[in-house]
């Protein structure tokens, strides 16, 4: 079968004065009609750059130094913008990794969808709106009318991501490039989206190049998978084949790093750690001068095939040889460090100049919750249920409409500097949470100095380097500006910035959503290490239930702004879970046998 897309020996460089970043070094890819090709790989390995090359959307500084990209037999490399436009949208659709900045802040979602619909479907204004509505529906947005009238900043991370998908899908492309399209989505919606993608391939023969980190997604959706590392494809094959019997050691490491539901229990009595490619990395005391690396769990020498594993508790292959002290340091022990009582948050939308009536939207509704010292509290819930808003409120970053929030006995709204240091926050969207005009090294170092964690520039630089190292970035990255990073790298910078401060309470809003599983494992292990050493407390928001279950001690579930239940992580699968929780659990995608096999 002739491929829709053929990428041959693609090289992409970012020339900088005195140096060149070789972001892509000889990628060969082939996407066939109607197939889903999953592209997995290390964070920063060049997936997004490859994807952007295809449509000629590389940043201005990038250069394609070699290679060819052919779409339906047409060479795209070197094509002028005008000619490329023939293929863009209707030929090749693109879902960008970063839904926050990829939507036009000045236009409503309805307008952006409508414009695209009118351009490609040649429909009237009203029809275009209808098309937009239908598509929002298709991507699982429950109140499309409101979303149509909203501006991007008024939507949750997951909602924006779905809007991006709708935008790209709308024009019915022959090839859809989806760069981590479901990272911000809860399991239910993720499943819905993936099924939508599969429908598209089925119905219209759309081919999909799916960049993802989630092996559940890979196995659920793709027929073939390509593994990328350091700018090149290291392995390519049938999904079942690659997942079941990976050839390349890196692929193997990746697969081994995948957390699975129920893993927590299999760790039974051992220190709770994930296997990761970086498992050799010494665990480091961030600030201690003594810097004594502790023994770390050794990686499993030869990973066993993991196909066919059940996502249920007590699944077969565990991480038996993960070693370490007891996992379940009794969470009930600690005093509450964060107390949220009866908190609500209303947003005002509409009003003068927006063309719609002023209204309030209750994003958080009467939530009461307390997080105890030393525990990891997981917050889950469908996209748009108010998790991020609650987290922002907890951090005192948003004024609240009602209720009280105390951190260690003090109202967060009045938090002083000392409190700030003890209380950190990793934002859901790393791109916007980093200052675009400041080198990331400075962004990490400044708070250290400011909050007295480092006594001088030197020490701050040292700690910065170490923090970057811990999240899998070398200290050399300190000199870069945020936009010179890949999505996952930015997220890690954001984490590094928070943990470098060794706060007492760390609020993590989907901290690993953009990370490949191996890096994710590194990060999660790191978080666990830090917690053990420094007795930290985490409020951990996530969509990946395997991760949540593995990492957290207690879990709260949000639904439409309310906290509907909290329970110990052990009881995630208990029978008396609320229906909303159940729905999330049911939608978890197992890795292993792909549910559909195409090709």
């Amino acid at each position: 079968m002739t491929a829709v897309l053929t990428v041959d020996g693609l090289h992409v460089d970012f020339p900088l004065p005195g140096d060149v970043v070789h972001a892509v070094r000889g990628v060969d890819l082939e996407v066939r009609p109607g197939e889903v090709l999953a592209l997995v790989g290390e964070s920063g390995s060049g997936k997004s750059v490859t994807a952007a090359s295809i449509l000629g959307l590389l940043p201005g500084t990038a250069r394609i130094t070699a290679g060819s990209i052919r779409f339906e037999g047409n060479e795209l490399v070197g094509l002028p913008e005008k000619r490329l436009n023939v293929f863009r949208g209707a030929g090749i659709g693109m879902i960008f990794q970063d839904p926050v900045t990829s939507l036009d802040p000045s236009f409503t979602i309805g307008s952006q969808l409508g414009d695209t619909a009118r351009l490609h479907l040649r429909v009237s204004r009203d029809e275009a709106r209808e098309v937009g509505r239908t598509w929002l529906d298709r991507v699982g947005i429950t109140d499309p009318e409101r979303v149509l009238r909203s501006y991007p900043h008024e939507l949750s991370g997951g909602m924006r991501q779905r809007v991006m998908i709708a935008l790209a899908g709308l024009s019915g492309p022959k090839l859809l490039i989806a760069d981590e399209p479901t990272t911000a989505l809860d399991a239910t919606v993720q499943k819905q989206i993936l099924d939508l993608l599969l429908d598209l391939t089925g119905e219209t023969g759309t081919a999909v190049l799916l960049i993802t980190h989630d092996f559940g997604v890979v196995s659920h959706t793709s027929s073939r998978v390509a593994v990328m590392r350091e700018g090149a494809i290291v392995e390519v094959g049938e999904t079942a084949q690659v997942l079941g019997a990976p050839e390349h050691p890196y692929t193997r490491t990746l697969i081994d790093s995948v957390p699975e539901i129920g893993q927590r229990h299999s760790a039974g009595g051992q220190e709770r750690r994930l296997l990761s490619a970086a498992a050799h990395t010494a665990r480091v005391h961030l600030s201690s001068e003594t810097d004594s690396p502790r023994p770390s769990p050794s990686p499993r020498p030869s990973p066993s095939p993991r196909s066919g594993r059940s996502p249920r508790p007590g699944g077969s292959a565990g991480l038996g040889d993960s070693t370490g002290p007891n996992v379940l340091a009794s969470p009930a022990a600690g005093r509450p460090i964060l107390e949220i009582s009866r908190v609500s948050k209303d947003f005002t939308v509409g009003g003068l100049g927006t063309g719609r009536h002023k209204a309030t939207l209750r994003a958080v509704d009467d939530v009461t919750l307390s997080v105890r010292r030393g525990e990891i509290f997981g917050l889950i819930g469908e996209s748009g249920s108010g998790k991020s808003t609650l987290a922002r409120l907890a951090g005192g970053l948003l004024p609240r409409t009602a209720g009280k929030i105390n951190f260690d006995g003090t109202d967060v709204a009045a938090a002083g500097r000392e409190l700030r240091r003890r209380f950190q926050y990793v934002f859901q969207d790393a791109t916007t949470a980093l200052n675009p005009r400041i080198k990331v090294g400075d962004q990490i170092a400044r708070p250290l100095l400011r909050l007295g964690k480092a006594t001088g520039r030197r020490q701050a630089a040292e700690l910065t380097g170490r923090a970057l190292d811990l999240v899998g970035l070398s200290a050399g990255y300190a000199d870069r500006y945020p936009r010179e990073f890949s999505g996952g790298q930015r997220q890690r910078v954001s984490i590094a910035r928070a943990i470098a401060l060794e706060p007492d309470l760390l609020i993590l809003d989907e901290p690993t959503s953009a990370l490949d599983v191996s890096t994710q494992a590194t990060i999660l292990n790191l978080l666990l290490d830090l917690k053990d050493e420094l007795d930290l407390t985490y409020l951990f928001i996530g969509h990946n239930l395997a991760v949540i279950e593995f990492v957290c001690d207690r879990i709260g579930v949000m639904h439409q702004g309310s906290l509907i239940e909290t329970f110990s992580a052990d009881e995630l699968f208990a029978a008396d879970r609320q229906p909303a929780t159940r729905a999330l659990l049911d939608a978890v995608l197992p890795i292993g046998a792909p549910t559909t096999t195409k090709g």
Partner: protein
Amino acid sequence: MTAVIAPPRLRRSAVARFVRNREALLGLVVLVVVIGISVLAPWLAPHDPNAGDPESVLLPTGSAGHLLGTDDQGRDVLSRLLYGGRGALVVATVSVAAALVIGTLLGLTGAFAGRRTSGVLMRVIDLLFAFPVILVALSLAAIVQPGPGVLIGTVVFGAVPYVTRIVYAEAKIERGKDYVEAARSLGASEPAILLTEVLPNLVSSVVIYGTSLVGINIVFTASLSALGLGIQPPNPDWGRMLAEGAKVLVTGSPGVATFPAVAILLVALAFNWLGDGLRDVLNP
């Protein structure tokens, strides 16, 4: 941890970025040359810039001994041109720099302070706007001796409200951004947020505005001098030379005004170019 793509070893230095920008370099060269000329004027100038000769009034450009001709007092235009940049450069740069600093601080404060403080501050700025610079200038002149100080004060007073509003408008947009929230959650005090987080994002605007102002203000100070507030005759000053030369601009001696006009233009352009370069450096 596996090695990621090696980060670039040699970081692009600010200097490298600056030098790469050809316009910026040209701007710098022009400024250096002009400053050099101004400093070396006593050695370069063929004549005493203030010594007139009633016998050779308004000699045309290219006259023997007076390459660029003479003015209506018979003074050598070239010599005056060489000296005339001193005041202009100092006044324009110092006052613009001061206005930028003050205006930026005020604008940032206006954008970030609470509703009430911000309201009061911005209304005060409205007030300054409405206040004619000329009135201030005349009042100043009444109290102190005219001279560069008065000029600088006046220009600063005139420019601050503009800078403030530019910065205010942009800072208000920045205020809503997540990185500001992030900084706050990282314990940055409000002043620190303004100066170390938000300011770098405004550098582009501030530099654009600042460098645009330099040229405008060289000319503006000339007008103030004509009101009796600035550099006093016979001392050569481009702005003054221009105003005086305008009298004979269309009556056969265009050079007297045109040479200083070109000098002002050149310096202004150099500042513009330099500003663009500076912006690239500060704002890659």
